[in-house]
């Protein structure tokens, strides 16, 4: 038995709370005073665009797989030029817990968190965001990355012309 330790453990909290009671509170008076949010604050999600102005999202389903509450759904389709993109993309913000796991999973930096946390409303359906509501006109946190310029499948640039690639080989060439 640790009588001394237990006693101290019982009494000390009272002392701490008593002291706290006399300190000056730190509350920010929210609607009047706005807090300076951290740039990494996790609230409403957006779908950003790449530096060329194209949709970044390739509808790869990784965010929806990572999402612990399964609130993202989408359907991928193919554009004329072979680009894979989302025909529709839906986030149900009544379910989202703003954990940000989707943004960590996203290989194209398309889905990003913003500081817009003022989402409360009376109609739950208004919180079901479709692609039109999510897609923004800027690059978000990163203004350089363009997935299709890294992935060598000839969508943003002809095959074999990305910076890390060589010309397509001539398979009928038998020279050593």
């Amino acid at each position, binding site marked *: 038995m640790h009588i001394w330790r237990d006693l101290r453990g*019982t009494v000390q*909290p*009272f002392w*701490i*709370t*008593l002291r*706290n*009671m006399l*300190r000056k*509170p*730190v*509350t920010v008076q929210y609607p009047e005073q706005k807090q300076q949010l951290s740039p990494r604050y996790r609230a409403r999600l957006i779908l950003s665009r790449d530096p060329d102005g194209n949709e970044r999202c390739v509808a790869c389903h990784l965010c929806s797989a990572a999402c612990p509450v399964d609130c993202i759904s989408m359907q991928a389709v193919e554009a004329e030029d072979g680009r894979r993109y989302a025909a529709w993309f839906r986030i149900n913000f009544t379910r989202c817990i703003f954990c940000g796991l989707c943004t960590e999973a996203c290989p194209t930096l398309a889905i990003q968190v913003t500081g817009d946390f003022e989402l409360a409303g009376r109609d739950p359906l208004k919180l079901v965001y479709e692609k039109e509501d999510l897609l923004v006109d800027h690059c978000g946190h990163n203004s350089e990355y363009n997935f299709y310029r890294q992935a060598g499948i000839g969508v943003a640039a002809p095959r074999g012309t990305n910076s890390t690639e060589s010309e397509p080989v001539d398979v009928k060439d038998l020279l050593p």
Partner: protein
Amino acid sequence: MSDPLLTLVLILAKLGVIFGVILTLAAYLVLAERKLLARMQLRYGPNRVGLFGLMQPLADLIKLLTKEDFLPARADKWLFLLAPGISAVTALLTFAVIPFGPPLELFGKTVPLVVIDLNVGVLYFLAFSSLAVYGIALGGWASNSKYALLGSIRGLSQLISYELSMGLAIVPVVMMARSFSLTEIVMAQEKIPYILLNPVAFMIFLISILAESKRIPFDLPEAENELVAGFHTEYSGMRFGLFFVGEYINLIILGSMVTVLFLGGWHGPWLPGVIWFSVKVLAICGFFIWVRGSMPRLRYDQLMHFGWKVLLPISLLNVLVTGAILLGMG
């Protein structure tokens, strides 16, 4: 006026005053609790409605009254509707026997400042605090929800366990005062309050009523992080409000009981009795709030262990020792 009529009018007047005071007090106790907890955690607490948030209880009342009154599917309708009432009414009724001031001289009559001065007031108190269990048990059972059921089962066993040591902590007081009447117990403490004469009984009583009031560290019946809201999970609106108010009325009652049994009731120098009584009650309530701000919740096994293996033996021993001393002193 004829005598019985006057008595009746006086009782009604007292009842009215007590109802008014207790309900208001309960409401503001809620506010006080929220404020104090907030300050302990370095926030303001409610400060939007009225000056310093003083109108918050009113806002809460309006909110509770206007919220949807929800009845879960397949709940036991009548029991479900009845339970919150039982909880609040038993708490209120207990106050009937508590003397909150020295007898007054009014219209040439001695008016005791207690609704009914029963000569078995202690037993009345014990009986009603046992009845309060029904509110929880029935509410949890009738909700047809596992959380509510678990909460009410916890509540039941906790209340029954701690009632034992609570009763046994009162026995020495009764022995010392040689009366079951609460007024007489207060009278007996005119010189020295029993807290000084029998501090062990006081401690046991204090701990037991913390458990009786289902407050931290004994709030297992409603443990939010395990049982959502325990026995009142399925309640909404004013029915939840009744449970809620019942809890705070209970707090006042229990504070009053401590005051009556151990702190010498209305006795005190300089100030009028009623004021002394109120100050003591509020101090106990303040202490309860402070405990809530400072302590964690016990585990269920710890609760049972503490009640049966620690508190009960000590209180039994205390009865024996007190009895022996009283015998020795003749």
